[in-house]
């Protein structure tokens, strides 16, 4: 992949910047360009989300996604953030038998992988139990 594919998402992935609609006040993450609730009446502005949330569901991934082989088995979860939006994230620093639904987590900055041996190293977020 060309490098811009990674750097254009940097504010969102590093700093958890999504959007808030000035019309309905809903917070949106991952970022969107039109408010799905208000559509053209929406007024989206960048919004930095709070990093706390809780686990709604999880799985232990044994058959890893391409590029994640060296991390298997790893925990993957859907987290509901305090601001409302949900996101999918790996749960890091966690034994595979420790995780449960309802666990409180915070979203932390982590190295995610690399685009092949000569490609860009890319970063994003994972969740960590608190």
């Amino acid at each position, binding site marked *: 992949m060309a490098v811009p594919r990674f750097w254009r998402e940097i504010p969102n992935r590093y700093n958890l910047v999504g959007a808030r609609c000035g019309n309905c006040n809903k917070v949106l993450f991952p970022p969107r360009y039109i408010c799905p609730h208000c559509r053209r009446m929406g007024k989206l502005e960048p919004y930095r989300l709070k990093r706390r949330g809780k686990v709604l*569901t999880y799985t232990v*991934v044994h058959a890893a996604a391409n590029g994640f082989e060296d991390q298997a088995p790893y925990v993957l979860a859907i987290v509901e953030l305090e601001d409302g939006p949900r996101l999918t994230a790996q749960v890091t620093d966690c034994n595979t038998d420790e995780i449960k639904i309802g666990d409180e987590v915070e979203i932390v900055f982590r190295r995610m992988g690399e685009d092949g041996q000569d490609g860009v190293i890319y970063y994003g977020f994972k969740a960590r139990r608190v």
Partner: protein
Amino acid sequence: MRDVAIIGVGLTKFGELWDVSFRQMMMEAGARAIEDAGIDGKQIDAMYVGNMSSGQFIRQEHISSIVADHAGLVPIPSTRVEGACASGGLALRQAVIAVASGIHDIIVAGGIEKMTDVLTGQATGALATAADQEWEVFVGATFPGLYALMARRHMYEFGTTEEQMAMVAVKNHHNACFNTCAQYKTEITVEDVLKSPPVTSPIKLLDCSPITDGAACVILAPAEKARKFTDTPIMVAGTGQASDTIALHGRSSLTSLRATIEAARTAYKIAGVKPDDIDLVEVHDCFTIAEIMAIEDLGFCKKGEGGKMTEQGETVIGGRIPVNTSGGLKGKGHPVGATGIAQAVEIVQQLRGEAGKRQSDGAEIGLTHNVGGSGGTAVVHVLRRGD
């Protein structure tokens, strides 16, 4: 709008077909359907082909031209339709709409996927492109992973068990044993499923549908002309399609597919039927939890009771509502773009009474349910005997 009938069906064998190419598979399914319909190629007005990802699986796009070309049917209009694993169902729907509108009369609706020309890792990577690349796959999600997230939540909310999920696989393997086209004609036990290697807990290897080569085809005609070709036309009584967020985390419910509920609502309304009127169904069991959620979302039991309904034997051949008599995606195989068409082939064979040892007696109305991705697309068709 005109009523639409299915007048012919054809299927290839499903499996790891090393010696058969994409082109050969599509011609085989197409020729069988045309022969079954008793039509001449010259009568065909147009074709729609469901295919998810020929670009990634065989490094060939623009297959609409290839299929028309190899069928000797140029210059008829030929269109590829893509909606991930729902591509076949969407191709059928586009063909139904085209006949209903009056713009075409006789249409071929095909579906195909050639998945074994790439290594397994490349194939699962190709399938993962039906999920949200930027916000699911980027963080390490896989398709079994996304369905495992639904399964875990379903277990938490409703008490669904791994044994109940395993029973879906056991039933579908059993049904597949009576289907000559099926990939897995082998019986398995609940214990086999529970002891199979973990993929993405609670999903284990035998909870997953396989990687499959295969093609399927149906021929559509306006209902008023159908009897010229066949004594047993099968009417397309209803069609429904719906969308949802690409990412699972974007949805308010993690235990039902809104796209399924909406597509079914439309299809039932057009057909003028209720879930109770349906005699048998082919649902999208890409993973065992998907069948449990599907029978709930389609209205065959209350939300959360799909596991219990399976455990009580209501979904076996001869049960209250047989589910996946063909073997489903789990037993028959899941060549993604072909699946939606293959489901219609099974229902047509059942309604005609031609399903042999897996025949569901007295079936008059059947339903097909085809899902793309983790539920970003769903398409439902209600089929009914024409007499």
